[in-house]
């Protein structure tokens, strides 16, 4: 049986000066390679902080760690964070890493789902643990009603034809399907960014209080993490190996082919493209886009403004080398 819940957790976040516990919002994988690299290369130590990285389990997410005081910093989807703020969790964004949406729908070519409208009435797999807001908002915009099937983490139900469409991350499940023997030309893909929902994803979040009290530690963390990402971008083989090593340690199925793909795509997501922002900066337009998704999703007005939500700790972020 899968006993993912029984994971020994580290001690509670100390709250001590110079020590931070960081919880990424998913299991170990190349999506977080920049942080692993920063730690492995000693960038955090060089910045004068010690960092512990803990991962969520199938049933405990990163937000829970934060609420339970087990983590000081967490990474989250922008929409998930807005959702948490909406639910009166007093958190702020201190750095927006991802600048684009990687969410997409995938259907098998032979399933007959050729357009987003063909999904009407179909079974669509979606993560049970969150990230639902943007896909739901997308289908709502196109007035397509589907039967959502919550899925924990694998693509097996989709492969076996148990669902017609699967919501996937370009950097993750999409490639897992490919690495299960489905050729790319056997799939229809629908990038949500092509449907007006290019909402950025991974960002770094802390309690507003932490932001106030521990600004220098947080700045050190963000700067060292960005350095980690830059290093990962320039040493992709190394970053992939490091990630696989960490995954093996956690007994999570892993292989270089998939993690290399993931690293490449996550780095692409961090590309700023034409936006007038610096790395780790949240674009006000993206904020508004995410707010409108959340407001539509919960049918409630979102009160905090951009300045309250986005409180960067790195004032002038140096130019990123990430391609």
């Amino acid at each position, binding site marked *: 049986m*899968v006993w993912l*819940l029984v994971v020994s957790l580290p001690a509670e976040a100390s709250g001590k000066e110079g020590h931070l516990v960081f919880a990424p919002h998913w299991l170990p994988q190349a999506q977080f390679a920049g942080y692993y690299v920063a730690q492995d290369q000693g960038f955090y130590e060089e910045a004068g902080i010690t960092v512990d990285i803990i991962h969520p389990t199938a049933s405990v997410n990163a937000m829970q760690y934060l609420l339970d005081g087990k983590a000081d910093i967490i990474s989250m989807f922008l929409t998930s964070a807005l959702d948490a703020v909406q639910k009166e969790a007093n958190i702020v964004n201190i750095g927006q890493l991802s600048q684009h949406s990687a969410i997409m729908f995938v259907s098998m070519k032979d399933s007959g789902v050729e357009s987003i409208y063909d999904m009407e009435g179909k079974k669509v797999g979606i993560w049970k643990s969150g990230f639902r807001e943007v896909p739901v908002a997308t289908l709502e915009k196109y007035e397509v009603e589907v039967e959502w099937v919550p899925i924990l983490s694998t693509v097996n139900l989709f*492969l076996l034809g148990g669902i017609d469409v699967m919501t996937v991350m370009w950097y993750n499940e999409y490639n897992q399907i490919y690495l299960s*023997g489905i050729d790319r030309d056997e799939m229809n893909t629908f990038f949500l960014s092509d449907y007006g929902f290019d909402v950025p994803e991974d960002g770094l979040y802390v309690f507003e209080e932490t932001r106030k009290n521990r600004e220098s530690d947080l700045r050190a963390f963000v700067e060292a993490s960005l350095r980690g990402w830059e290093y990962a971008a320039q040493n992709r083989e190394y970053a992939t190996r490091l990630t696989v090593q960490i995954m093996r340690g956690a007994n999570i199925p892993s*292989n270089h082919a998939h993690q290399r793909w993931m690293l490449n795509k996550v780095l692409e997501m961090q590309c700023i493209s034409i936006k007038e922002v610096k790395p780790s900066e949240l674009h006000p337009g993206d904020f508004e886009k995410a707010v409108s998704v959340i407001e539509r999703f919960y049918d409630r007005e979102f009160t905090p403004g951009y300045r309250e939500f986005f409180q960067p700790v790195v004032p002038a972020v140096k130019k990123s080398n990430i391609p």
Partner: protein
Amino acid sequence: MIKKNSLSFRIITRVLLITITLFVLIMAGYYYYARNIIREYTRQNAIELAGNLTGKIEQILQPMEKVPQMLASTMEMGLIHPDSLMSILETVVRKNPTIYGSALAFEPDFFPDKGTYHMLYAHREGDRVHSMTLDTEEYDYFYMDWYQIPAILKEPYWSEPYYDEGAGNILMATYSVPFYCLRDGERRFAGIATVDLELEWLTDIVSQVQIFETGYAFMLSRNGVAVTHPDRTMIMNKSAFSNAEEWNAPILREVGRDLLQGISRFREYHIPGRDKLWIYYRNLESNLWSVSVVYPDREMFASLRQMTTMGVVFILGGLLLLTLITSGVIERLAKPLTLFAGSARTIAEGNFDVKLPTVSTNDEMKELHDAFSHMQEELAEYVVNLKETTAAKEKIESELRIAREIQLSMIPHTFPPFPDLPQVCLYAMLKSAREVGGDLYDFFVIDKDKFCFAIGDVSGKGVPASLFMAVTRTLLRTIADKEQSPASIMETLNKSLAFNNESNMFVTFFLGVLDLRTGKLMYSNAGHNPPVVIGSNGNVSMFEAAKSIPLGLFEDFIYTEHAVQLNSGDKLFAYTDGVSEAENKREVLFGEERMLEIVDAGKHLDPKDLIKSMEEAIDNHVVDYPQSDDITMMAIRYT
């Protein structure tokens, strides 16, 4: 040592070349066919091996699969009290050593008193069986593959391999069977019955398969993920598809896709940077898992390579031996040839009695020997003949030399001939083509006022001609004593020569009698080339051509005579046809025209110099070409 240019070397190299070519062709053919046979044999072996392994695994999996099926049926019958279910699971695990764990997981609120989450699980822990009930939302099993997939697909499901953390910390796969129950007259999904298979244990079974030294067997899941593999880090982590990417070996993706479609195949594959392998893969019968057997190409064809190497070594050894023996045989057979060569050289040196090599065989060498022997005899005989002939020839030549001396002594050759005769300045020469020739000239004083001169050319050449010439000259002297006019001298001479002239020889003859006081020249010409008159005024002209026939043909022929007046300083140039007809190698004649040119050019010279210049001109024309006719010239100046 065999010499490079020897006959035996050439024969052996050619024979070796052909033998080696044949040998290479035969070995290549042998290798190709043997390789095909081995490949076919391996293919059959692989099919059988994979079949056996599949059977062995099916024998484990199928009874295992029966267990949750039985549990599901039992649940559907609804006869068992919920509290007895755990002991059934414990018994199942305890009684089935192949089963690592077994579970019953129920839909929310299936048992009203058990709540939303209700799952019973028994599993092996060393020798004991451990059991537990999971009934909190902490373990949200409804969305796990082993539960959700069979629930939605409504059919049994073998999970992908995964790591079971918490209970046993082992790699496993779970087989799940959905069960249903009647509620409100409706058949509804009620839950899942499972058994767990420990992959370590399955790996041990599959690892028992021995294929040569480093061949191996492994199993893949439906997704192509390693279920068992000798490299245990592959299990759960890597798949045919991920390795296809990592190793840049698209063929592995083809293998994975074949298996997804239930296709079995025996094929070779080559991962960049690694040894070539052969693989046979097939699916299990009960699920889309597969069994593959891998044969290293190097080991598969090791015996063939060994045999081929041995074959090459033996044949090379054989060829070496063949070379040695053949060269010995050929050397021995060809040895008489060398001896014959020596004999031939000795014979060439003139030793015809040399002993020929002994030939005991009755083959071509014997023929050569006989031919040599015959040649030896023929040569000896020929040389004897040659010696005799040469001796005879030498004798004749010596006689001819004497004859020439006699002949030359018959014509005057003292110049100037008449130192006390100032009116006549004369020079003459005779150059024979052969040892003795047929040309002649003569001059003498008849009385103190008459000067007689003659030039002639006897038909034919050699001894007969010279004899005829000697006769002619002797007769001329005799007749000129009695006769005074040229015509009568000619007629008398003709009569004498024609008389009894059985051999029909003749002589062209020009005879002149010059009156030394008056300069009047009386002459008669019997078919001879007309002489040239060089006037003291520089005028050069020829006498008119002769109208009379040569001497010696008709006894009674009447010869005429003519007169011409010579002035002081006039010159006469008489010659035979050897001058005008002197030939060079291109068969171009010297010619009268050329002769007249030389005469004209040398008209102021005295007779001797005129003749020398003519001789030089002829020599320049003829160069080295052998002289074919006698050359005779005579020049006279009257003063």
